[in-house]
């Protein structure tokens, strides 16, 4: 059998932990950590899912304008996020909430963006996690350029693992159809940039299935651009971490870009505005539910005894507390003021904009002056509502 490109249709999927929670070997990749690490990543994934669930609930209750859920993609995000060294740098899409968690971005910033308080104003210099990019694929070029800068800084291939820097550009399956992503592949390849292209193939670009984006497995695209591509079980946190670690080391050591296709599934809607029942079958969801990234780690920990009920209970309790606190913080986020935003358009403010701000401030002040004070004994009339009683 061969696919549309004439290449064998046999697709290799790197897996180190089966959906049933059994550790399996792989000739090229291995998990080098211990059960403590697996417990940590279990906690990361549970907390990520709990934060995600809370955000979805907040949207349903009208407290967020929108939320893009990462439900089902926790292993892809925590596995890759935990492979990062502190000097590495991440360019995310708008759904990398688990990676943000690994980089130390307070989730309240993600909620602030989706609440409409700001446009995603966390400290990217401190967290090494660039602000979210909503236009599909645009950030892959920023990631590539950043990596070109790293290379010019002489921070590739020094042999010092604490100094050498790799960059990760995240994107989804739909983005692989974008010109920018393909241009990013070309620039990265041409300049041998220290970058890992991390594609979460969650099978759906809103309503369009992966078959609409590609007639060949996505990871095979890499070879056409001149760098290696690998498909990893995106619901297997151990395999994702191992594959990403290898790709990051390759980039840091000066061997150039590589492509990871994390094969996963978007268990939720594209965003809270979407209705997936219109375009996909419940059977498909059930099929992927059996491959859940968190359940398989729990199964492994339970069976080996590395995690007992008290551990799982403690993580769940921590997640519940965290979510409650996050909700409280979300509801008390300060409201933004348009007037404050005029000063952030330019690094060096323009006279035109300063003047426009001044005029708007005067306009706002004119309202304060126009409210007549109620005279004692003559309360202001109640406003009429168009005769509607």
């Amino acid at each position: 059998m061969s696919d549309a490109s004439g290449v064998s249709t046999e697709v290799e999927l790197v897996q180190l932990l089966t959906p049933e929670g059994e550790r399996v070997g792989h000739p090229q990749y291995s998990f080098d950590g211990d059960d403590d690490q697996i417990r940590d990543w279990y906690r990361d994934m549970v907390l990520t899912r709990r934060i995600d669930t809370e955000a979805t609930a907040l949207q349903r209750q009208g407290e967020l304008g929108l939320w893009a859920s990462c439900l089902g993609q926790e292993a892809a995000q925590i596995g890759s996020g935990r492979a990062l060294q502190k000097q590495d740098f991440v360019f995310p899409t708008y759904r990398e909430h688990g990676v943000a968690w690994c980089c130390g971005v307070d989730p309240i910033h993600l909620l602030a963006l989706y609440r409409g308080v700001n446009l995603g104003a966390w400290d990217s210099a401190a967290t090494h996690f660039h602000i979210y990019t909503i236009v599909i694929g645009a950030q892959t070029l920023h990631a590539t350029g950043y990596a070109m800068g790293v290379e010019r800084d002489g921070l590739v291939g020094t042999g010092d693992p604490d100094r050498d820097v790799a960059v990760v550009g995240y994107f989804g399956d739909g983005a692989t159809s974008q010109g920018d992503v393909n241009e990013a592949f070309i620039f990265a390849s041409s300049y041998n940039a220290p970058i890992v292209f991390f594609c979460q193939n969650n099978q759906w670009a809103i309503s369009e299935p992966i078959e609409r984006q590609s007639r060949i497995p996505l990871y095979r695209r890499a070879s056409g651009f001149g760098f290696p591509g690998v498909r990893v079980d995106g619901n297997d946190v151990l395999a994702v971490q191992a594959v990403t670690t290898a790709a990051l080391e390759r980039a840091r050591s000066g061997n150039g870009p590589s492509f990871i296709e994390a094969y996963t599934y978007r268990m939720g809607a594209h965003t809270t505005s979407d209705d997936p029942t219109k375009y996909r079958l419940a059977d498909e969801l059930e099929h992927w539910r059996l491959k859940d990234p968190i359940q398989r780690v729990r199964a492994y920990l339970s069976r080996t005894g590395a995690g007992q009920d008290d551990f799982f209970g403690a993580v769940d309790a921590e997640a519940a507390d965290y979510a409650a606190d996050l909700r409280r913080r979300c509801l008390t986020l300060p409201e933004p003021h348009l007037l404050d935003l005029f000063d952030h358009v330019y690094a060096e403010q323009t006279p035109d904009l300063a003047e426009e701000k001044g005029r708007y401030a005067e306009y706002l002040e004119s309202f304060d002056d126009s409210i007549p004070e109620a005279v004692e004994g003559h309360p202001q009339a109640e406003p009429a509502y168009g005769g509607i009683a």
Partner: protein
Amino acid sequence: MTVLTMAKALNAGLRRALEADAKVVIAGEDVGKLGGVFRVTEGLQKDFGDHRVIDSPLAESGIVGTAIGMALRGYRPVCEIQFDGFVYPAFDQIVSQVARLHFRSLGQLKVPLVIRIPFGGGIGAVEHHSESPEAYFCHTAGLKVVACSNPVDAYWMIQQAVASDDPIIFFEPKRRYHEKSEVDESATPVALHSARIVRSGSDLTLIGYGPTVRTCLDAAEAAAQEGRDLEVIDLRSLSPLDTSVVLESAQRTGRVVTVHEAPVNVSLGAELAARITEQCFYSLEAPVLRVGGFDTPYPPSRVEDEYLPDLDRVLDMVDRSLAY
């Protein structure tokens, strides 16, 4: 004092910028070994290396998008878009990405990026090589837009643009690349975002920028022979506009004609007319009139001389203004 063409003046300015700051890099199609199709970057790769003067793959969005990434890493990239009509594949990276990063990050991210674009017609080129797309960029908050009109400004403005912490679209009038003038490399330049009166007059104000400043000066010269005393303003900065110079002149002369190659519909001329009307209403003797390209796509080159504002069309509009 050296006599330089505008292309050589830009080259000298870029050279000085590369010398002044090791973080300055140049990227674009053919900018390295060839020195650019207009030779503006000639010799720079040889002297500064291919790590600083980068021949890019043939992809405009890629050029601008990777330059944004380099700027986020602390570099000060100067991109070249080979011709005006080729900038549109990079439109998202310019208007939705780089223009907004400072705003979106509430001022945390500075993106010092210069995008050089040879613009305008008059060189007998094929399609997409003669456009004037400046209004698109002036309409976008977060961008600054400038246009040089002569070698002296070219030399200083490119250095000032590179030194700016804001993204700047830098328009170069390609049909003026080979016009020469003396450039004093030890002079003190005027501020980047300032307009300049290049000829004083009292009867009417002509406002041009880039390639049409020369057209305006020629028109003023011709009008002088008929006893009309025209003032000419070189706008230089298209966004932000230096309205102080423009409004003062409009109040003094009472008549304004704007001149650019771009179509007048929703143009710089339209914006100038609106601002002048609002601010100088009681000083005006005539409505602000606009001369520009027509609302057709840029025509085949054998008729481009009809499309481009020339001395006769400017003088015709001057007559109309003076007739009010």
